[in-house]
């Protein structure tokens, strides 16, 4: 049995850990609230832009634009959203595993794919495995503004317009609720599934100057907004996931402290019993 002092040190160190995990849980909880609000604030924009884009793309048969057209896939880009810090349970590993598996299944040569990564954890993961990273952003704030990632999104969309990549797939944690998130992968570019769901008769628009010009401006913006939406979604997931992870860490610390206290009391009891036996034994020997 461990010494009394040994158990006591373990109890006090576990208590300190518990304080930290509890604090982190509360911090993540409030960040989750904000992230949820951000995601909600984004909804009107995304709905509106989707409505207009589907309205335009679905209206005329002559809606032709490189971003709407499927072309032969020579190179695929994977847009992966992870966090900068760990301690978020399976948040990062789930996404990274899904991406890694997809890459292994679909590609044989490194020329066929590239990765665009958000977050330090993801970057280190791909670097370690020698997977080509074409763009990265780390140190993103917990409440990202659109301007924070505008450069990244427009560069990504530019890659597609320049035909450097022929397909863009995004991997991120979709936020379902505070206790459940799931890895979601979506094909962002080309925008092939626009005409679905636009069955409601959208009034036909006049275009100023013309449809082609509008699509040139609108589609990149739409794609960028999809990326931003995914980012907000995954930020909410990150905080939710970290909150859950920290909550279970706190619970585990509580369990451990209970166990250790029991052990400590037993050890203390045993020591007292032993001392009494020794005293009684000693007294008996003197009579």
């Amino acid at each position, binding site marked *: 049995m461990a010494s009394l002092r040994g158990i006591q040190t373990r109890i006090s160190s576990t208590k300190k850990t518990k304080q930290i995990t509890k604090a982190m849980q509360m911090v993540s909880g409030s960040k989750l609230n904000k992230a949820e609000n951000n995601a909600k604030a984004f909804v009107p924009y995304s709905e509106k*832009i989707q409505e207009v884009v589907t309205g335009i793309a679905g209206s005329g048969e002559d809606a032709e634009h490189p971003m709407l057209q499927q072309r032969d896939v020579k190179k695929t880009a994977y847009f992966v959203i992870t966090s900068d810090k760990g301690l978020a349970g399976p948040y990062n590993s789930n996404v990274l595993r899904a991406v890694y598996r997809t890459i292994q299944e679909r590609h044989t040569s490194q020329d066929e794919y590239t990765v665009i990564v958000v977050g330090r954890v993801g970057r280190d993961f791909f670097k370690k495995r020698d997977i080509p990273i074409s763009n990265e952003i780390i140190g993103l704030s917990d409440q990202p503004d*659109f301007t924070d990632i505008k450069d990244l999104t427009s560069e990504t969309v530019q890659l597609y317009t320049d035909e450097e990549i022929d397909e863009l797939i995004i991997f991120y944690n979709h936020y379902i609720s505070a206790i459940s998130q799931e890895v979601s992968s979506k094909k962002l570019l080309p925008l092939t599934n626009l005409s679905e769901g636009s069955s409601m008769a959208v009034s036909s628009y006049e275009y100023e*100057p013309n449809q082609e010009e509008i699509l040139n401006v609108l589609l990149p913006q739409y794609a*960028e907004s999809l990326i931003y939406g995914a980012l907000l979604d995954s930020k909410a997931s990150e905080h939710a996931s970290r909150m859950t992870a920290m909550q279970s860490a706190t619970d585990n610390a509580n369990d451990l402290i209970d166990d250790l206290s029991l052990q400590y009391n037993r050890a203390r009891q045993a020591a007292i019993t032993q001392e009494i036996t020794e005293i009684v034994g000693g007294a008996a020997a003197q009579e």
Partner: protein
Amino acid sequence: MKTLTVSVVTPDGPVLEDTFEMVSCKAENGELGILPGHIPLVAPLTISAVRLKGNNHTERIAVSGGFLEVRPDKVTILAQSAEKPSDINVERARKAKERAERRLQAKQDDIDFRRAEYSLRRAINRLEVIEEKR
């Protein structure tokens, strides 16, 4: 007097929603004035100020990277950023302007050049919107 519902929406949330009598803005091809009952229209906007004229007040909004969607009784402006004069950080805009000007003079490779030009235009636009207000 007929009115239009105008809403200005950005990725960071709605900026404004109110009724006005006229919207005038700068599209890629030139100035556009929208009155109630306009036919449905979509037009991209330049980095510029959008002026909203109401019953007895006028609002100005600095818009960048946006476009305009018009329905007979409703105008929606979707922009990557849109700010009312009261939300503009003058200090920041001024600094951004100086920085962009320095960069343009330094003449680096063309991507930086383009970016600097855009940020200069955004900064100038913001400052102009504030100036007009005064």
